[in-house]
């Protein structure tokens, strides 16, 4: 496996990238924490206070919405960031690819590893918050978040590799992905609860529901909600779907890369 041979390079670069991403700024590494924290605060304020989002499931109390939000949004953020950064990974590392016979995948894998670290840290912080401040948990079911994070990032890696290959030929892919990811987030029940479509008998939207369930990211976010928010075991069907999606994305990526590799090198 190519990625295994280059694991040292991938890990070292992913960590160095996280360290250097905000180099030159005064707050430095703290930006890695500030930015998601600000985003969470905004969503929490708008949805729980202004819109009065009703949460009937999960933990009760003043932190109920925050716990719901974090359980899905932290993983989604890692997914979205990996996807966006991965789509420009080959073009951005053209300097290496033009001069060294390195496999293309490692630059996408580097972004995926970075996304995994960020999510692992922020979810760990969330777990601590949940236990010590919100007094919710801990549950064994939370551990399911680890394999699901790996699967989610594996999905982002596969899809990101396909996009990165296409971005070499059509630079439109990267700006396009910024829009897609934004739309995708609102089509996925990350900041709102899925039950707003299902629970209310006046609003049975079969089309919306179908869109929701045909959305591959839905199943991953659903798994995070079940394990982190509700503390349930994730049903086997969701496991199977997520593994299937991650495998399919990686298979597709391998095919696309195999087909385009020679031309990617010519064009870079």
């Amino acid at each position, binding site marked *: 496996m190519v990625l295994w041979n280059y694991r040292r390079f991938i890990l070292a670069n992913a960590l*160095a990238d996280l360290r250097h991403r905000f180099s030159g700024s005064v707050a430095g590494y703290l930006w890695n924490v500030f930015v998601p924290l600000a985003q969470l605060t905004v969503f929490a304020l708008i949805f729980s206070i202004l819109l009065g989002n009703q949460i009937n499931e999960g933990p009760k109390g003043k932190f109920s919405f925050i716990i719901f939000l974090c359980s899905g949004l932290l993983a989604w953020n890692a997914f979205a960031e990996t996807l966006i950064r991965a789509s420009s990974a080959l073009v951005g590392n053209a*300097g290496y*690819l*033009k*001069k*060294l*016979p390195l496999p293309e995948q490692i630059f996408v894998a580097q972004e995926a590893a970075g996304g995994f670290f960020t999510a692992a840290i922020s979810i760990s912080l969330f777990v601590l918050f949940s236990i010590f401040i919100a007094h919710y948990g801990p549950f064994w079911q939370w551990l399911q978040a680890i394999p699901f994070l790996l699967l989610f990032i594996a999905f982002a890696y596969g899809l990101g590799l396909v996009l990165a290959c296409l971005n070499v030929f059509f630079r439109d892919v990267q700006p396009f992905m910024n829009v897609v990811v934004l739309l995708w987030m609102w089509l996925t029940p990350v900041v709102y609860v899925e039950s707003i479509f299902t629970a209310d008998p006046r609003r049975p939207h079969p089309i919306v529901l179908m869109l929701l369930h045909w959305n591959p990211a839905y199943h991953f976010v659903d798994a995070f909600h079940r394990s982190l928010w509700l503390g349930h075991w994730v049903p086997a069907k969701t496991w199977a779907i997520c593994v299937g999606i991650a495998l399919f994305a990686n298979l597709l990526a391998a095919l696309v890369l195999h087909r385009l590799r020679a031309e990617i*090198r*010519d064009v870079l």
Partner: protein
Amino acid sequence: MTSTALMPFTHPDAASASASASEERPAVVTVRNLSKRFKQYPTPASRLIEWSSLGLFQRHGVFTALHDISFIVRKGEFFGIIGANGSGKSTLLKVLTGILVPSSGNYAVSGRITSLLELGTGFNPELSGRENLINSGRLLGFQPSVTRSKLEQIVAFAELEESIDVPIKYYSTGMTVRLAFALFAHVEPDVFIVDEALSVGDVAFSRKCFQRLDVMRASGCTLLFVSHDLAAVRKYCDHAALALARTRKPAEKFVGFGEKCESQANLGFIRLMRR
């Protein structure tokens, strides 16, 4: 659009004289009928049209950078590749190092091939010389422990003992080249590609580099030397291949180069092997 053919030469006399000696050595680099063509699309949109019509509407032109090249480099040889800008030297080297995929024909390189073209590519300006050596070693596929064990040697060769812990963004171009050459010269490749980058260093260091190349060669390393510097090629190389743009008259180049080099005993050439 100039497309080119790289033509290996063997001097009629030199070839027969050195034939018996070189025939016995194993071929390290073998190139057979290698061609490299690039597809050129006028705009990204024309590529989209061609792709989405599954090739029904062909929208690309073809640029032939290398046309039907064949040559053999044997173990321990110092093989020169000479040619004008845009004659396909770099394309050839990129194919040999595995960066580009040939359009047709094939090539074989036995052992590890390292190129000075890669010079400083893995270098991060924010990191110190020492950290960069370890990082680049990792990129070339070496464990940090291997690079570390050779670190003293490399630093001593580059004569950078005083500035090895300074971020390399403060290095001069010459210092960076010295660092990179020192690294590549100590990773013991089987085939080593040297190019113009070498001339960036000062005279003393340049001499030192060539001495090092002799040492490497004596230990069985095969060298490909890409240069505009005919004097250096004449001085060091056993054989040379000439990359020519097809629009130039090959005969002129052939005669001019051949005459000058005839006095050099160890440079064998020059017979066109045209397609």
